């Protein structure tokens, strides 16, 4: 049976809707993982909120045959996934919760369809990971990020799967593509490298002051990817924003401090 356009999008992005509540939270995973990284947080929020979970195309259990090289070269392409999911579910006034790069992706989507957003929560965000001396220090030199792309290549074991489409013609047919490994983090370079490039080589600082929606920035006190200074930078640029620094190590607050993150979200949303 043919799927409707909305059903196709929900299938494409492996969209799951859980929880109870009149307010919708949409949780957007960051670079490297998929919606499973929210599994520590969702049990703390699903009694109060309707929660939308999804995987960007190319991540997790998304439909890999829907991957478009051109579209996912920059973050606007990933923002289109968010726009289309919210439209397919006909959600208005959603609270968008984005981890790391997804904070920027959510921000870009909110410019396109502002009516579908009410607030944004940014967990460990950064608008630019590059050091741009005199002006801005995102934490990384271009050569660090090029080494990252190379390391991702070297950590991918499925060479045969990668080479097969080159030999057989890359028609993205479901028979040739397969689900990413059972592990929820995958480094399949076909999908992960463009996401890495879109994430780490982009600069979205100039977009920050266009954000109109109330925004909560949650920054980890010790995060080697997104420092507290970057949190302050974003707070200064985003008009209606507040920042909370959570005493923690690492870049995955929603995995290491889920109860604190859940409390902050609840307070901010109610």
């Amino acid at each position, binding site marked *: 049976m*043919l799927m409707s*356009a909305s059903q*196709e999008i929900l299938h494409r992005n492996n969209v799951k809707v859980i929880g109870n509540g009149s307010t919708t939270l949409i949780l957007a995973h*960051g*670079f*490297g*993982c998929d919606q*499973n*990284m929210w*599994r520590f947080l969702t049990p703390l929020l699903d009694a109060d909120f309707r929660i939308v979970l999804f995987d960007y195309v190319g991540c997790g259990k998304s439909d890999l045959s829907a991957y478009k090289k051109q579209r996912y070269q920059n973050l606007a392409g990933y923002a289109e996934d968010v726009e289309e999911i919210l439209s397919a579910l006909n959600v208005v006034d959603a609270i968008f919760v984005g981890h*790391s790069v997804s904070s920027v992706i959510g921000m870009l989507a909110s410019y396109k369809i502002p009516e579908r957003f009410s607030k944004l929560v940014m967990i460990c965000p950064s608008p630019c990971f590059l050091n741009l001396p005199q002006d801005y220090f995102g*934490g*990384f*030199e271009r050569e*660090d*990020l090029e*080494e*990252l792309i*190379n*390391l*991702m*290549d*070297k*950590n991918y074991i499925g*060479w045969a799967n*990668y*080479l097969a489409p*080159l*030999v057989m013609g890359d028609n993205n047919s479901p028979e040739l593509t397969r689900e990413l490994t059972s*592990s*929820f*983090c995958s*480094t399949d370079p076909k999908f992960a490298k463009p996401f890495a490039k879109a994430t*780490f080589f982009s600069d979205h600082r100039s977009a920050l002051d266009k954000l109109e929606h109330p925004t909560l920035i949650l920054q980890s006190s*010790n*995060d*080697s*990817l997104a420092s507290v200074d970057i949190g302050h930078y974003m707070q200064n640029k985003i008009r209606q924003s507040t920042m909370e620094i959570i005493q*923690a*190590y*690492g*870049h*995955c607050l929603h*995995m*290491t401090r889920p109860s604190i993150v859940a409390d902050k979200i609840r307070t901010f949303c109610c």
Partner: protein
Amino acid sequence: MLREQRSLINLDAFPCLLLVTDLESNRIKSCNQYVETMLCTKHNEVLDKSISDFLSKATLILFESYIRPLILDSGECIEVQITLIKGLNEKLPAVANIILKDGCLHWSIFSATERDKLYQELIDSRDRLEQKTEELIVLTRLDPLTQLLNRRAANEDINDMLSKSRRKFIPLAFILIDIDHFKALNDKFGHAQGDDALKQVSDVLGQSCRDTDVVCRWGGEEFLIVLYDSNANNTVQFCDRLHKNMQNITVYQTNITISIGVSHLTSRDIKKKNMFEQIMKRADTALYEAKNKGRNRTEYSIN
């Protein structure tokens, strides 16, 4: 007996780095003496430092984006290639196996210099293969004279368009173009001039279209354009513009003109099995009519 065997195990004697770090803070709580060989740093200077002090910046991103989430989810991360910082600032490729136990990460890290070289060769080979494949795809899809799509590539792209239109109707305009009196031009001025006319016409057609349209050399002096998402009015304007743009093309002071036959994909067509053939047949009939009516004009098929 077991205890006796265990007492023989000297962790400092193993040619790999064994580390225990705090899951939260990344502080190094314990390590074997091999750290002095592998990282060129005194054993007592390593303790209490953060593991991030010995990881390259790229590895830090990998650690925060993949390794740590994976460990938090499944308790382990096996056979991951990382880059260590040795001595002052020397990079050392290494492979790590990491498991979570009692709130600490237990790392066994092996030097991987040779494996790294092999992987780099594999990556280089893959990149070369990828580049060659792309070049070959371009070569097999393009008409060598005009650099427009050839008929086979156009067929593929048009079938993709039609499949999309089957799922959600998108108006498509099929525009079949023929250079007027091309045979006479060839006979009079020679094949080189004929080829020049084909190239000039192709350039105009290519420049007149969007990325979403299909433009191809359908065969001989015939071209096919499929305009994506184009209604009847837009198509009329487009064809008028083509005739106008052709006025700039001359071969030995002879003006080049074209005849055009147009048909549209209708919502009724998409239910038919051989819709492509039927639409093309209508465009072909319209083109024949344009020629019969004196050439240098467009005729539209009435669906």
